[in-house]
């Protein structure tokens, strides 16, 4: 459903070029749950934003169902790490924002937002403002806002990165339930190996900056997955070995940057 072909991205700023992504090739099937895993600064957010159509690629091609895309589209929605809710809108208005942009009549919007707030368990909070919610609740609103426009492709950039462990676990399970129920294709950015293994069908492990695809790991285990099982432990060790090298390289790069800066 989504293909990324020889994609490159170089940030140009004040004479110095930063290569962020080099020759990315991916193909994501309809209904697949795919994780992008990599060390900090390897270009995960960049790749996700390019797929979302928020920033242009330097070269390469993104196609959805065979059609090249450049720019955002109605079949994609994004969930950001820091929620990006509008503080001046009630929870309900936030959820309805995409529908408002689509000029849906108020009654229909109401119907959709009521249904989705129920799905994420926030029916009683519809008239609250975001600052009155906990982090987990805010991210639920953000997910409901994305689901409201009924996108085929859900792009999530470390959506649970700012949450505590329990809330995170809870939301992961909720996300899996929603993913199954609504048959979405999900691209999920994370830097947590456990999260990637728990959630995804396939994990794309990226190299340290500039980001390339280092390895693609399949996770065929049936859900719900038991993180304590022998198979899952084995898989975790595998991914950790692959990612470990890159994390070390990323750290070395960072240190070199620090030295250069000092």
């Amino acid at each position: 459903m989504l293909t990324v072909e020889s994609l490159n991205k170089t940030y140009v700023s004040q004479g110095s070029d930063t290569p962020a992504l080099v020759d990315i090739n991916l193909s994501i099937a309809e209904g697949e749950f795919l994780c992008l895993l990599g060390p900090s600064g390897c270009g995960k957010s960049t790749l996700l934003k390019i797929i979302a159509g928020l920033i242009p690629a330097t070269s390469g091609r993104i196609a959805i169902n065979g059609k090249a895309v450049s720019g955002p589209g109605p079949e994609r929605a994004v969930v950001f790490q820091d929620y990006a809710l509008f503080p001046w809108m009630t929870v309900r208005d936030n959820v309805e924002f995409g529908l408002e942009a689509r000029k849906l009549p108020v009654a229909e919007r109401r119907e959709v937002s009521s249904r989705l707030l129920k799905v994420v368990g926030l029916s009683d909070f519809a008239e609250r403002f975001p600052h009155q919610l906990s982090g987990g609740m805010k991210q639920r609103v953000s997910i409901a806002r994305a689901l409201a426009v009924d996108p085929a492709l859900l792009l999530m950039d470390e959506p649970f990165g700012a949450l505590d462990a329990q809330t995170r676990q809870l939301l992961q399970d909720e996300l899996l339930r929603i993913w199954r129920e609504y048959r979405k294709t999900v691209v999920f950015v994370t830097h947590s190996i456990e999260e990637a293994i728990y959630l995804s069908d396939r994990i794309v492990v990226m190299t340290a900056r500039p980001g390339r695809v280092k390895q693609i790991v399949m996770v065929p285990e049936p859900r719900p997955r038991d993180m304590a099982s022998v198979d899952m432990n084995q898989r975790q060790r595998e991914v950790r070995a692959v990612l470990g090298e890159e994390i070390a390289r990323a750290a070395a790069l960072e240190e070199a940057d620090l030295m250069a800066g000092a």
Partner: protein
Amino acid sequence: MADVSFAKNVVDEVAAEERIAAVSQRRWPGRDRWLGISTIVAFIVIWEIVYRLGLMPTWAFPSPWKVVLAFQELIANGKLLTNTAASVGRQITGVFFAALVGIPAGLALGASPTARAAFLPLCRLLYPIPGIAWIPLAILWFGVGFTSTVFVIFFSGIWSIMFNTMTGVQTLSGQYTEVAKVYLASRSLYTRRILIPGSLPYIITGMRLTYGVGWRVIVGAEMISSITGLGFLIDDARWQLRPDIMICGMITIAMIGWVSENWFFDWVEEKTIVRWGMRTT
């Protein structure tokens, strides 16, 4: 698990309530309030003492009580009401037009580097001209009266609202724009639902300043270019040798300015940015 998020939510709510309480407490803490009132009382007492000791000529320096009597007189003959209405009418008209032009102009300047490059130099050149300096020109163009005073208020006040709105747009988080793009929001929806409410903290501050500047300039303008209004009332009292009436006019100006600046705009803030948890102090 549900307990965890519920407990967190309660904590957040308490924090929010405490914030609101802190804000209102800052405005009216018991001790500070008494300190403020005592100073005002002391001021009036000293005024009375200066009067009794005859430190100033009595024809030019009325006692506080004479001012109270003058208030009574001005209320009875209706002059206070008509002149206050005239000033307030001009003030509101002038501020309204300043907002009508200043807010859209500020939004455009904030959103477009091209607009900034084109118009900021001219704005920076016009901005330092004191409102009062426009009065003679305003009289030449519009004659003595309503229009020229409104014009002066407009030109003195527009800068605060315009520059503040511009800053508000410039400091708005880029992430909101990304959300708008993701959901394919039109330009008008983006302006209405994101740009304006998102920069509202700055817009309200700008309106406060614009209102204050307008109210401070109106008296000067009315002294020169008007035959009604509180400025005129004060200036006219000069010819009648009635300093008590002058002070009545001054006190009225202070009261109306204080009430509208502190009460009205605080109310608007409570209804909007405080409610949204957007107050930045």
